[in-house]
């Protein structure tokens, strides 16, 4: 198969379709995923094509969905479940933290849980409260989970295939604002494995570190900076857990300057972790403190105010400006 223009929703749909077709143990379930094809149409057509035993709607209960997935995985299946929106995964929090993340460890690896929890996440779509949370910190802080956040449609396909095929539970964060953006995707070309970051843009002056929905924003900022004579690199983490220290540190050591970009509120967040790690591991290469450009420490704002909350190009460039360029000269 060769490159095709598709949206991220279509890329994920294709990944689910191919996984279901290839492996009898893959099942897809959640709220509105069957007949409707999901509120974002991500599972469109799967129920029609694979039937009720492979793709089905559940009662409206997220703890139930995830808890049932645990049992199905214990009994040899590979459940891929959808939480309808980020904040609606919170009712399943106990199941995710106390069981999905820990059952493999609890049983000394006798039980493995190949579960993928798909979460349409983050903002930028004008959604009302509870529909735009960036909840990755909750999962990334929980040992035992793999946390993936694709930024490109090709990664959405490839990382989801890898997540479904693996033996461990994965929280798969799908940036909602990408669902309907078209990109060339060649599903026959393998993407790097989960755990590997990718340098989306090399840069000599400073390194922007981002994942998921913040990657295109970081790229746009780098684009803009280039017109102003500053050469910014962009690292796309792709997965938050495992974390690719090697790639991140290699880039930062080259530039001596780093800005972490993420949509979630910054306090005790994944951005904090990245800043702390980079500070710890690249200390002697740093010309300036690692800056974080994140959402503010407030609940996701109402639609008319979200643009003030979201880290944008200007805010990133402002942060880059504070990286003590004079001193470094």
């Amino acid at each position: 198969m060769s490159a095709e223009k598709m949206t991220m929703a279509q890329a994920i749909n294709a990944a689910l379709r191919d996984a279901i077709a290839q492996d009898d143990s893959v099942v897809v379930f959640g709220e509105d995923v069957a007949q409707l094809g999901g509120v974002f149409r991500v599972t469109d057509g799967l129920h029609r094509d694979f039937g009720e035993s492979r793709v089905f709607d559940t009662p409206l209960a997220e703890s139930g969905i995830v808890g049932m997935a645990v049992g199905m995985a214990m009994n040899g299946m590979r459940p891929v479940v959808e939480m309808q929106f980020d904040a609606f995964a919170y009712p399943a929090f106990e199941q995710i933290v106390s069981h999905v993340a820990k059952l493999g460890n609890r049983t000394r690896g006798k039980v493995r849980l190949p579960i993928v929890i798909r979460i349409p996440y983050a903002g930028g779509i004008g959604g009302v409260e509870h529909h735009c949370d960036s909840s990755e910190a909750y999962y990334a802080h929980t040992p035992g989970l793999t946390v993936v956040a694709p930024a490109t449609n090709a990664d959405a396909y490839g990382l989801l295939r890898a997540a479904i095929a693996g033996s461990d539970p994965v929280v798969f964060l799908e940036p909602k604002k990408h669902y309907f953006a078209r990109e060339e995707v060649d599903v026959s070309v393998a993407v790097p494995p989960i755990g590997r970051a990718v340098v989306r843009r090399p840069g000599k002056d400073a390194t922007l570190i981002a994942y998921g929905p913040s990657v295109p924003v970081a790229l746009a900022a780098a684009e803009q900076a280039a017109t102003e004579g500053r050469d910014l690199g962009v690292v796309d983490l792709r997965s938050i857990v495992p974390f690719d220290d090697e790639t991140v540190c290699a880039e930062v050591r080259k530039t001596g300057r780093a800005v972490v970009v993420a949509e979630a509120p910054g306090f005790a967040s994944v951005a904090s972790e990245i800043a702390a790690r980079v500070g710890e591991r690249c200390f002697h290469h740093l010309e300036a403190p690692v800056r974080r450009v994140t959402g503010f420490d407030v609940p996701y704002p109402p639609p008319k105010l979200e643009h003030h909350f979201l880290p944008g190009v200007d805010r990133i460039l402002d942060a880059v400006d504070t990286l003590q360029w004079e001193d470094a000269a």
Partner: protein
Amino acid sequence: MSAGQLKAAITPARLLDETGRLVRGASKPDAEALAEGYRKLVFARRLNEQCGALVRQGRLAVYPSSRGQEACQVACASVLSDGDWLFPTYRDTAAIAARGVDPVEVLTLLRGDWHCGYDPNEHKVAPQATPLATQLLHAVGVGHAARLKGEDTVVMALCGDGATSEGDFHEACNFAAVFKAPVVFFVQNNKYAISVPLARQSVAPSLAAKAIGYGMPGFRVDGNDLPALEKVLGEAVARARAGEGPTLVEADTYRIESHTNADDASRYRADDEVADWLPRDPLLRVKAYLTAVGALDDEREREITAAAEEMAAAVRAGVGAETSADPEEIFAHLYSTPTPQLAEQRAALRAELDLEEA
């Protein structure tokens, strides 16, 4: 638990049949009160229509319509006293309006201006809940607190058929029953949770039958029959007020429109099904009854329509008015005293905005 109680939880109570005739053995509703109810039904319907239009005009981001459920919307508000509380969902805009809150304030949420546009304490209406079933527990808390304080407040807690599957529904019903909290749980069973039909939500003989497992009375009622709803809900409110604890009421109704304008119901249900429900319109049967008993004539109908139009015009004007959202408001309400971190972030945003303006 008697056989009669079981039956009441399974067979929907009715006062008016679909043609607006009093069912056998039913006592006559007060015509004047019912005419007032009819007026509210017309208002609720008009509000649903107006909001739909505002969505099409791009003035509201989204609107979950309660078309077809107007009798539920009106009844749950009308059985409450001023001191009582209403806990609505996103679909219950018309109920909140029926309770007396200015619809323009209610629509603040769906305009995207703020998460909640009215003061919950003013009309004793909680913010519209989006996370399903969570508000039912808050309702129990308000009721239990009232009871501890010796107040006779009653709390009307709304949710949909889908929400009954959530753990919080269970915990709320059970807490209310155990604490004998003055709560009326009112489930508008409109047969769908977005695309998921009732059969995938529950295989119980009825949703009201769940009451048995909590040790509280459960009633099923025709959700398109205003007087029946007012009777069943009114009795539940009276029991709660008298200290007899909670009741679970299930309304048998139907969501005529899509889940919201963003939804396409044709993907999961047949037009026939909707067509079957249209003749069961909650307005028609009240109108037929009132007309038959002579409590509604053309003049009164015109008067009601005109008043509803006035309301709709006010909604159009209110929603259409320019609002100036204050970006700094996102920091303003989180803590009663802002943390140093928020003060810092607010200052940073202000500096950005100042720069933009300069």
